[in-house]
């Protein structure tokens, strides 16, 4: 299988285990890679998410696609810069990516071009702060500032 993938996809391909293939591609060939993988029986998008690599000042987009026939999960990764993050939509390839893309916009501030609901609220209502899943957003600070806690004096005796 890996050989077949290597034929159609340009990028770093790593067979981690018999059922896991990691594919690292360039930003601009992300959707074409997924398209090609779909042709290679990777028909199901299992997960589409992002990781905030704050040290590299980059987002890593991760799409997990699965092949029912070969029972192989391909982890497709790409990196995009953190300033004005924008990606092309992949809903034309995997329709169920729609809400994952909305979530990317809400949780990371990644704008998805071609997705009409991108950057619209999905889980959060009236959120005005930084996108919460970014590493530079501090949840503890936000929670202590905004929500009053019960003052309980703990006595150890």
């Amino acid at each position, binding site marked *: 299988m890996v050989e077949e993938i290597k034929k159609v996809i340009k990028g770093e391909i790593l067979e981690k285990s018999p059922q896991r293939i990691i594919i690292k591609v360039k930003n601009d060939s992300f959707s074409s890679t997924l398209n090609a993988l779909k042709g290679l029986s990777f028909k199901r998008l299992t997960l589409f998410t992002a990781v905030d690599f704050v040290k590299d000042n980059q987002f890593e987009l991760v799409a997990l696609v699965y092949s029912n026939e070969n029972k192989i999960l391909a982890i497709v990764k790409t990196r995009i810069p953190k300033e004005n993050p924008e990606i092309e939509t992949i809903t034309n390839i995997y329709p169920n990516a729609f809400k994952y893309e909305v979530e990317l916009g809400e949780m990371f501030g990644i704008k998805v071009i071609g997705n009409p609901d991108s950057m619209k609220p999905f889980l959060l*209502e009236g959120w005005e702060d930084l996108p919460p899943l970014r590493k530079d957003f501090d949840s*503890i600070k*936000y*929670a202590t500032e905004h929500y009053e*806690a019960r003052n309980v004096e703990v006595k150890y005796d």
Partner: protein
Amino acid sequence: MELQETLEEGYVEILDHLRKRSLWMLHYCTACGAVELPPTITSRFDAERFGIAPFVTSRQSDILLVTGYINIKTLKRLVTVYEQMLPPKYVIGFGSCTINGGIYWDSYAVVKRLDLYLPVDVYIAGCMPTPMAVLEGFRTLMKLIDEGKANGWRKYIENYDYYKANQRKVLKW
């Protein structure tokens, strides 16, 4: 109107005594604690023998069960629903999350104390409280009603500004 006054003064104790035997809780699974409500209601623990039954709309119900953590999106609905309910109405805080935020003390999406936003009559501690604990909570509420101490709804009217201010701070209304 005379009857009303008589009801208010003379028979209030009898009424409370009868009223506590019929408590309808709102069918609103606000959070994960709702998973222990079906066992409470259904055949094994059978809350209906105390006159406790789930009811559908806010107008019909007496008890608002806040079953666990309160997301701010949910809090907005909770306040709306609570204000739609008809007094006397009671709020039961269910699980530790309603008391002090519980395990979600550091979450940006969850408020920590329910009693800042709604007047709570009874808390049921635990994560999550077992049906036995839930029934004990209901029994406590019944006792409070019988003694005329379950006055959360009066507190809400008297301290309306306080509650509204707290709500506004969180909900950006």
